[in-house]
């Protein structure tokens, strides 16, 4: 059977449609979920506002500047969590045979798993994150240049790719070590909390590890510096603040390699 060029995309769209219809089938509970899911992200943003009720500066950043960091972090995490977050359910997919089933179909295993289990109720969180981001960059008094106008669109996308890569890479570990969920959570949720503040509020090995060892400084801190036209208080050269898209591409490549390695070493179930 010859595969038409658009055939694969049509197939993915059909999977997405099925997922949307089956979730909308329980409309009342879907609406409740939609509203309830904004909670965590609103809380993160409120925390920052409350902090600024007692201080004028956070790690050398004003409220308006910090909101750029928070908005970017909130949008990137919520969107990645919506699109890719459920991949942490790999142990369940293995147990129920879903992973075997998708491997027997003529489509990529990862996109199938993501589309078949897409938590549409998390859309509300991503939209809230987007609203915070738009408000923050509008209020920040950015000195607009073509490069900054481009970055204001690319940085959130890069952040989504980065968090998505962290989700996939940590989930892949559970192919080999089923109880790795705690470790995965400390990286994904830890990363979300870390990126909600300028990295200058953290210190020592912790900052070094999360910011540059794992690369979380490039999700929100460095793009914010570039947009605000601020030099890095920690002394890194200014080009580093524009490196977020490149870091996201590297993260995605590493995550893809990890995923492929995991699938090649997948053991299936013994029965």
């Amino acid at each position, binding site marked *: *059977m010859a595969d038409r060029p658009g055939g694969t995309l049509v197939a993915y769209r059909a999977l997405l449609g099925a997922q949307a219809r089956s979730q909308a089938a329980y409309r009342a509970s879907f609406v409740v979920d939609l509203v309830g899911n904004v909670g965590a992200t609103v809380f993160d943003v409120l925390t920052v506002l409350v902090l600024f009720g007692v201080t004028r500066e956070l790690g050398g950043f004003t409220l308006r500047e910090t909101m750029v960091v928070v908005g970017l972090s909130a949008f990137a995490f919520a969107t990645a969590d919506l699109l890719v977050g459920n991949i942490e359910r790999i142990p369940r997919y293995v147990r129920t045979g879903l992973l075997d089933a998708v491997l027997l179909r003529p489509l990529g295993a990862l996109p199938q798993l993501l589309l078949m289990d897409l938590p549409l109720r998390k859309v509300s969180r991503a939209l809230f994150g987007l609203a915070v981001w738009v408000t923050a960059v509008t209020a920040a008094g950015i000195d607009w240049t073509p490069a900054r106008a481009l970055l204001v669109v690319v940085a959130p996308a890069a952040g989504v790719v980065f968090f998505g890569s962290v989700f996939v890479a940590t989930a892949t570990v559970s192919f080999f070590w089923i109880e790795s969920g705690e470790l995965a959570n400390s990286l994904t949720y830890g990363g979300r909390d870390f990126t909600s503040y300028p990295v200058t509020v953290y210190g020592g090995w912790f900052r070094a590890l999360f910011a540059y060892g794992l690369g979380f400084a490039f999700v929100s801190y460095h793009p914010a510096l570039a947009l605000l036209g601020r030099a890095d208080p920690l002394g890194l050269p200014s080009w580093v603040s524009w490196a977020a898209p490149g870091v996201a591409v590297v993260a995605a490549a590493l995550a893809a390699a990890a995923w492929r390695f995991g699938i090649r070493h997948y053991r299936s179930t*013994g*029965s």
Partner: protein
Amino acid sequence: MGVPQSRTEMILARGLRKEFTVRVKAGRLRRHKQVRAAVDGLDLRVDRGETVGYIGPNGAGKSTTLKMLTGVLTPSAGEVRVCGLRPVAQRTRLALRIGVVFGQRSQLWWDLPLRDSFDLLRHVYRVPAAEHAARLRR
């Protein structure tokens, strides 16, 4: 259609092997790793038009073999070609050409009407609409 290596060879396995590392109890607390072969040196050739039964007691390695033929499991050793394709490396191309049922529960979408599930799978397997309608009528 892809071109099989020889005209009629549909399945070819040479020295196909799959081993699993299992942890076994050794004493009260200690466990140690042990390697067990689920499939050990399988040679198999099935030509076009042949109908073949593959039988054996529980745990003989039938499912493991099928999973290697379909690209779900990577063999530990040996060679395998199905329709002239390498199952793991060319998994999605192979999946368009073969049909497999593993007693899978996950094939259907429980929240959707049965007809919608079929329609969805039509897209997944890229079956043209007219052909799909004709098959459903049967």
